[in-house]
């Protein structure tokens, strides 16, 4: 999953971000009414952010998992089989929705659905450096909930089947940014929610266009994103990688991003991380069909690269290479300064593997 590399101050933030906030700021003890555990991210102090498409909400849960560890690796063969067994079911009834590393402890968190129907149970598992899986209990935990303003209605006679599938979440300093995709209208919206959640605020959505198509601009949904040097780097469903200055994300507004790379045909971006090796920053992107791509990143390169605004040619955009040894990667996150954790899916089997950052 995704994590901010640098601290950002979003223009939307009305107050200065409070970096000294406690883990349980704005939280109450109870059992969050999560219906679907989807996209995950970590806020500071071991607070797990869980995207719930069915409730149209983001939950912030204090895991209490704040003991730093020297974990160098997490490896679990057949993680889906093991999770299925713990839940007392088969792999056909087990879906791993997302995977994220707690940057404080180095433990891995997985959001899971037990079942594939509308009443599938949401479950969160933790894996430690020994590869031992345990369920993260959601009973009597400290948590806060931020519901979206346009949550689907379900009142008799006026059923509203519209939902926004939450495709990615990221914490940036004092703010949670959420990418989503409606199951009805075609729109590109990034939502931002002030953090810690105070229970009263509504999310703000920003319509993001990008100019990748000759003289045509589009409003395609964002699939996955990271933040880097005061920018959101967003991978779109129609495959461009777009740079959006954070300062452009103004409430209720519309902004135009700069297309800095094309991720290729017959391909969907799945997950991204930013990391540093030596003095060079890199972006690593897992894709459905084109393996794992690696791009050299720098603010100067993003600023200076020629935006892709015409028919595709080889001179525009940032160059990337494919990391050949990484195949079938569906999720990735940074474990520490030198290692990444991958969720690898091959046929019906899923493994967790740790690699040296390429």
């Amino acid at each position, binding site marked *: 999953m995704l994590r901010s590399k640098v601290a950002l101050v979003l223009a939307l933030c009305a107050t200065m971000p409070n970096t000294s906030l406690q883990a349980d700021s704005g939280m109450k003890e109870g059992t969050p009414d999560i219906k679907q555990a989807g996209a995950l991210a970590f806020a500071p102090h071991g607070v797990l952010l869980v995207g719930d498409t069915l409730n149209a909400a983001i939950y912030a849960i204090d895991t209490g998992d704040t003991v730093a560890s020297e974990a160098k690796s997490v490896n679990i063969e057949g993680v889906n089989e093991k999770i299925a067994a713990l839940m007392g079911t088969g792999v056909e009834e087990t879906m791993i929705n997302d995977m994220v590393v707690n940057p404080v402890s180095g433990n891995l968190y997985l959001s899971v659905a037990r079942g594939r129907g509308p009443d599938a149970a949401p479950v969160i598992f933790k894996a430690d450096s020994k590869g031992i899986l345990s369920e993260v209990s959601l009973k009597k935990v400290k948590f806060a909930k931020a519901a979206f303003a346009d949550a689907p209605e379900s009142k008799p006679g006026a059923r509203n089947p519209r939902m926004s599938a939450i495709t990615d979440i990221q914490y940036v300093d004092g703010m949670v940014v959420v990418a989503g995709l409606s199951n009805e209208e075609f729109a590109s919206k990034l939502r931002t929610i002030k953090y810690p959640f105070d229970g009263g605020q509504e999310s703000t959505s920003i319509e993001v266009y990008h100019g990748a198509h*000759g003289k045509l601009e589009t409003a395609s949904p964002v699939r996955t994103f990271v933040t880097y040097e005061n920018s959101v780097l967003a991978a779109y469903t129609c*495959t461009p990688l777009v740079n959006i200055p954070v300062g452009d994300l103004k409430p209720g507004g519309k902004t135009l991003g700069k297309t800095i790379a094309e991720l290729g045909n017959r391909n969907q971006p799945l997950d991204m991380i930013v990391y540093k090796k030596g003095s060079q920053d890199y972006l690593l992107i897992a894709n459905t069909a084109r393996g794992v791509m690696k791009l050299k990143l720098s603010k100067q390169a993003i600023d200076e690269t020629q935006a892709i605004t015409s028919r595709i040619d080889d001179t525009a955009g940032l160059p990337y290479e494919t990391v050949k040894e990484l195949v079938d990667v569906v999720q990735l996150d940074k474990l520490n300064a030198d290692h990444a954790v991958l969720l690898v899916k091959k046929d019906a089997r899923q493994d967790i593997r740790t690699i040296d950052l390429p």
Partner: protein
Amino acid sequence: MLLSVARGACLIACYVFLWNTHATRAQEPAPDISFQVQQHRVGKSSVIVELRESIDRSILAIVGLKTLDDLRTLTEDQLKQLFVVRVHAATVETTLPAVLGTYTLTDSEFQFVSRFPLSAAVKYQVQLSTRLTDDELTELVVAPRGKPLSPAPTVQAIYPSSDVLPENLLKFYIHFSSPMSRGEAYQRIHLMHAGVEVQDPFLELGEELWDIEQTRFTLFIHPGRIKRGVKPREDSGLPMTDGKEYLLQIDEAWLGADRQPLAAKHTKKFRVVAADEEQPNPVNWKIATPHANTRQPVTLTFNEALDHAMLNRVLLVRDPAGEAIDGKTTVSDRETVWSFEPTQPWKRSDYAIEIATNLEDLCGNSIARPFETKLQVEGGEASIAPLVAIEFAVE
């Protein structure tokens, strides 16, 4: 019924399999178990393992234990070692972790309550320590019955319902008779032309776009194959082109939420015509107004088909005081007609139909903006109101 089971070095066993439907144990405290009960006798001993299943809970209970009181000094972790429940692995070599659950000792039995109801899709291996039985390690296999199956699901409708569709069509809605299973949609849907499957026509998202009941699936055509200038369209072209016939095919193997496949394969045949790049414009719509003191519908007739789901959601009728009025919305004539029948008769007054300007046609062109717009200088475009209103008088 008496069954014999022998597995590996485990010594068991014979167990009596008794099946009682809607049975409860009188001596136990008011269980919420009213669904079904199985009993498995362990070897020749007096010990019975009983599986009780209800809609949301499963209990495996060991009854007839002579050593029950001896167990009361043990911790839950120690109890776990004596009574292990695992998903029955397909291969003997595989050792799967034990099923999550809680262990308790009641007045008369040793209970395991699984974290989730046990599944009828798998079998469970129950291992009892020698401390619980007179035999050596005793193992038996139980197979939950689960919930009764509902009828096989069917495809009830596909929108747009027309059999003539534009080549830049953006999405289909597939409606099912009952909840479906997540995670296999894109394997089950095929776009066919002349008997050959069109490659990569859809936007495939791991999240899958369902409604909350999982009875409606939204299938987007890959936007990169529709938008001009992006690599998917540059390389592969439009997935559907003007003048050709196509078949949207839904496999009967698609499983319903309770793992039953569709009752039948479903196909939608359609012909493709030229792209639609025009925005819907209310100026081009016709309105038919009702009479006062009736519940006749007010009707809008469009000059093109609009998005079925959004027509049912983003229009409402307001009374002169600006209050939304209750009534029933109907979308008909291949999504070219919207009508609204109020719950209460119309009054002789002025009303308004309020329409969200994100209302789309079949190609993602909305009242507010076309699917593709001309590149604007930043901040150069006037913002479009989120709502428009069509006023009408009831006489």
